[in-house]
């Protein structure tokens, strides 16, 4: 691991030394600054702070917010909350998976899109909802997905298939 990353993690660990159970915060901070919580980061946190890698991995694999590899240029969040689920969230996810050729948690080979499935985004009235970066798309239809993606790619998302 390079010294810059080490330094960043050390600083984060330092910041939380007085907190009772800072594990989640530490992981969130690492992801925020370094983009993901990849294996070497987790191992470093485990070694330097007496956490167990098993526990850390349990946490990052439980919360969909964590990424084990660096994200693509744009992150697509598919809402899998209750309301969106009822209104066809699963179909949206299936279609996006097909269009991009990846599963939630993965990034397209060209590094443009990362797909994530998340719990309720807090705007159930618009369900089914997806978010790309900070933009929210409500009442999404499977037939409209391609159109939306193209905006971010400049080229047709078809090329990914």
């Amino acid at each position, binding site marked *: 691991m390079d010294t810059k990353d080490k330094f960043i993690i050390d600083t984060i660990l330092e910041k939380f030394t007085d907190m009772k159970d800072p594990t989640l915060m530490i992981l969130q901070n690492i992801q925020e600054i370094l983009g993901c919580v990849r294996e070497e980061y987790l191992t470093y946190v485990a070694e330097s702070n007496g956490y167990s890698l098993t526990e850390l991995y349990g946490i990052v*694999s439980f919360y969909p917010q964590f990424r084990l590899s660096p994200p693509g240029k744009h992150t697509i969040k598919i809402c899998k909350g209750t309301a969106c689920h009822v209104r066809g969230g699963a179909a949206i996810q299936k279609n996006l998976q097909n269009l991009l050729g990846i599963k939630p948690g993965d990034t397209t080979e060209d590094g443009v899109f990362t797909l994530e499935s998340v719990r309720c985004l807090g705007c159930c009235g618009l369900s089914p909802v997806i978010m790309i970066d900070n933009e929210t798309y409500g009442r999404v239809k499977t037939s409209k997905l391609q159109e939306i993606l193209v905006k971010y790619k400049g080229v047709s998302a078809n090329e990914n298939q």
Partner: protein
Amino acid sequence: MNIIKSNDNNDISADISSKPRVGFFDFASCEGCQLQIANLEEEILDVVDRLEIVSFREVMKNHSDDYDIAFIEGSIHRPIDEERLKDIRSRAAILIALGDCACTGSVNKLRNDWSVDNVKAEVYRGAEAAMKNNDFFDIFPTKRLDEVVDVDFYIRGCPVRKEQVLYYIKRLSSMPPHKNLDLRFGVVPRDIEKDVRSIIQYNPQKCILCRHCEIICNDILNVHAIGITNKGNESIVSTPFDIGLDNNKCISCGQCLVNCPVGAFTSSSSVERVLELLDDPENFVVFVIDPIAVASAMEILPTENTQLRPVMGSLIAALRDMNVKKVIDFTHFGYLSLAAQGEHVKTHKDMTFTSWCPSAHSYIEKFLPEFKKHIHKETSPEYLMLKAFRKWYGDENLKIVFLSPCIVHKGNPDFDAVLTARELPGLLKSRAIDLDFYDPEKGAFDCELGLSSVYVKGASSDYTYSLPIIEIAYMSKFNNLDAGLAVTTIGDYAHELAFDSEEGFFNALVIEDITRASKYLKKDIRKYNVVELYPCFHGCLTGGGQVPTTSMDLLNKRRDLLKNYKGECKAKDLFVSQIISAYDSIKEVE
């Protein structure tokens, strides 16, 4: 259905001539678990067929307070929740905690690290006026359901697996459930493969995600080899990045296995291998029995005998019938090991780890490497036994089968096969052997050591702290030991023993719980002559090869069986001198 719950023993009985009335309720949660049920698709018909759903806010408007079974999702945050939950409890004969929030508090409990005021300030800053005197915002630290009321059944998962809920529903509507058997409710297979890379194998198909295993491995043993990974339907017990148990510092103690209520953990079977060894007439098969394993196997062996001695006699006779050439009592080498350790302690003033347990050795090597050189495997019973066998039986066609209470030996290439207590009935069954058919009087151990009695107490059966050390001291002729021994309990799980002898002053540390021990292990450990520790609770009685149980009664039964089996040693001095000379005869063998 008319369900009656007995107040004395929590038994539930039911008249199943009519459909049970069921209510679904939620407290603080995402409602995802109920969604699993709403999402049963065509199977929902099956459910409706079996149950009369009287309340289910997520899917219907009607509501009735007349129900037998309550499924409850979510955790408890407020006095008003508490009241409502108690009210539901008072109406429902059976209360089922649905999902992790209800079972453990799960994500909702994360906020308990902060004070209620801090939490409110963080989330609702600026809305203080609206919150004032408002019951909805009157919160306390999050509680799981059973911190408020009795819970009859727990269905774990975030969210729960719908197949499992369906299973519970079918089970509840067809057969009166029994509270104490909750965890034995069957589970529905998932499409996740079995992990068979190590001695300890894990079958996600059976796992109900109760987390007993990981709590033991992480919180009690401090090994952190396993944990629950992933979420919801995909949750399994696994290792980080799926590197496998062996790569994640597992010490093969098998405590996860013996504490799993549904048998999701198993160990690889050696029955086939043993049969192969027995089938080859060229082989000289020596069968080593650790009586502790038989004491546990008796719980699953079909035999009328209730005492260990006749069962052992019949077993030995049966083994001879199966072409076994020698049947050896492992405890004899336990005695020799005591003699060897005694001698070692006398001649080496620095600290010695005297546990025989290979998992304990592995623990020290992995977690306390700085103390590795204090382990002396040459004084272990296995080491001495293998040495003796080579001397007695040569090694050309020698095949050693070991019936042991632990699984860690399965990884020892010096043994040709290692059977656990769990595998013994299978071995006998595969040769259609009925133990009770064999005359117990006809079976006696072979003993080339000239040991006359089965007397031994201590280390191998149980780590009741005083015994191994006293025995070591005794074996090594520390004559005035009884007078000088002092036991000080220095922590719940750690004891100090000090004894004066002709040879000088000795002290020992005995550890009953590795986690809490680690602090004693690091601190001043070198000041002790002898340190004993075991990863398994109650020592080998609950070893990883034993029949799984968490019942104290059963453990005490095992203990009693062994106690009666061993009997009292009348001529202790004679016995000790026999052991010392037996040890001397093996010591010099290369």
